[in-house]
């Protein structure tokens, strides 16, 4: 908590002089941003239950200032889901606040709160005007946190990152190396302060990639240690050490290629936990591929396939004569969406989006097998401010 306050204080103290100078009128401080508002229509195939909702999905405001020819300061404030502090809806957060030194195309150094480079989409997953999607490929869709724990698949924060590219003929070799914390999210007030605990552990990650013309691919990896939710720890009792500081490895791969009016982008992510216990197994896999077609420069049509497969564990607790008895069992989760959509740029600043996808979910335990189908239809409007 103290370190968070200290970081916030440091961030504000870095920004204040810039704002003060901006008011004097000699500054190159730039303020810009975007918002996306959307309509989502979801129908359950079996029960015919329909959910319809409009929302101000996201609003981001940026402050950017060049400090000489080599350094840039950048701050990103993000507002989600109809944010209202009075009604306790949505969220407001400082997503990024960093200082970058651009020594050379081969070496940039960013220090401060930032989104780390992992695969292709992670950097830009929240830059809605850049994306044709209303609903992003599942693990990049933070508003679907109830369906899938997106923070397990992607590194959310880094605090120092070196990156750049090394040219070699027509090709460029990209690299990024970063350090950060391993956030553990507690949403239950019974177990202390809610929110993201960034003091628990340490994260190291990297991406290396190759670009050549309209072709690009990359490989990403992170290593950190993860505390399973405190609700589990408290129930586990004497075994709780098995659920603290569990080593976690994320591996990712990304691929992009464009040919004339067509382009293909695809990614996979695999997350594996080393639980120090052969009885427990957690293995997460995500894959998506999208084929885009641009008949005219302002219009993008696409077809997309998303796939998630999770091997998780559940546990049951029974109180017996000798105290608490727990048994673990495997939980398999499967998600698949095959859909498509369109995005139309009305001009450089306004994008209209449509998206439709039938979705299938399956949950399997030793005693239960659930299958469900939903149909999603979404419309979005993204505006650069």
């Amino acid at each position, binding site marked *: 908590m103290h370190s968070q306050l200290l970081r916030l204080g440091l961030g504000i103290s870095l920004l204040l002089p810039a704002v003060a100078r901006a008011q004097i009128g000699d500054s190159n401080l*730039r303020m*810009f941003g*975007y918002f996306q508002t959307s309509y989502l229509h979801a129908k359950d*195939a079996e029960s015919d239950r329909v959910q319809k909702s409009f929302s101000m999905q996201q609003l981001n405001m*940026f402050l*950017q200032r060049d400090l000489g*020819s080599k350094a*840039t300061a*950048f701050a*990103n404030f993000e507002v989600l889901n109809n944010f209202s502090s009075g009604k306790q809806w949505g969220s407001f957060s400082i997503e*990024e606040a*960093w200082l*970058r030194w*651009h020594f050379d*195309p081969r070496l940039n150094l960013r220090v401060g709160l930032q989104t780390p480079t992992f695969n292709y989409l992670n*950097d*830009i997953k929240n*830059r809605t*005007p*850049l994306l044709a999607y209303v609903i992003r490929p599942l693990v990049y869709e933070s508003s679907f946190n109830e369906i899938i724990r997106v923070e397990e698949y992607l590194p959310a924060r880094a605090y120092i990152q070196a990156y750049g*590219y090394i*040219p070699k003929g*027509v090709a*460029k070799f990209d690299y990024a190396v970063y350090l950060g914390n391993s956030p553990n999210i507690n949403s239950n007030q019974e177990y202390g302060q809610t929110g993201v605990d960034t003091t628990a552990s340490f994260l190291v990650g990297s991406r290396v990639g190759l670009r050549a*013309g*309209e072709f690009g691919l990359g490989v990403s990896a992170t290593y950190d240690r993860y505390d399973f939710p405190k609700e589990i720890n408290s129930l586990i009792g004497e075994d709780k050490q098995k659920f603290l500081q569990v080593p976690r490895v994320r591996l990712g791969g990304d691929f992009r290629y*464009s040919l004339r*009016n067509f382009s293909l982008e695809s990614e996979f992510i695999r997350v594996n936990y080393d639980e120090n216990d052969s009885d427990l197994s957690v293995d997460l896999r995500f894959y998506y591929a999208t084929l885009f*077609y*641009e*008949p*005219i*420069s*302002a*219009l993008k*049509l696409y*077809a997309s396939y998303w796939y998630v497969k999770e091997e998780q564990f559940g546990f049951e607790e029974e109180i017996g004569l000798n105290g608490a008895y727990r048994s673990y069992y495997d939980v398999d989760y499967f998600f698949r969406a095959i*859909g*498509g959509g*369109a995005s139309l*740029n009305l001009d*450089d600043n306004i994008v209209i989006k449509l998206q*439709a*996808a*039938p979705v299938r979910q399956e949950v399997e335990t030793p005693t239960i097998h659930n299958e469900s189908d939903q*149909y999603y239809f979404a419309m979005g409007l993204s505006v*650069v401010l």
Partner: protein
Amino acid sequence: MTRLRWTGRILAAGLGLGILLALLVPRAFADSVAVIANKSVPVDAVDKMQLLDIYSGDLRNWSNGRPIVVHDLKINNETKELFYRHLGKTPSRMKSLWLKKLLSGEGAPPEAVETEHEMIERVAKTPGAIGFISVDSINDTVKTLAIIESDEKKKTAER
């Protein structure tokens, strides 16, 4: 299953409409485009790869450390089409690239000007500036770094 079929039909109809639109849009290209720069720029020529690096924001400084001030035309005319086609990009793909740089805090889009006349004026008086115009518009207030010729013009020259 019915809904799946309808989703497929809607996507197919959209794709068909898109292809029709693409066929109906006329395309024309200029004969030749000149890449121009401010006279303070420390190079006398640029190749295709360097131009792409400059216009995609990967290369931000000249060899003497001075920032590169990139210029673009606001309107989509034949000159602009030929210039970006030479770089292997469409104007819309370049815009996406610039927007990505902007929203990631990695750079700003080029300075956009209304006309080629304004492009020459701005490049002539802005240290470190680079831009492009049709060859017919070149004058001695700027430095010419490259001439880009259309395929049609190259074929005519070969004959």
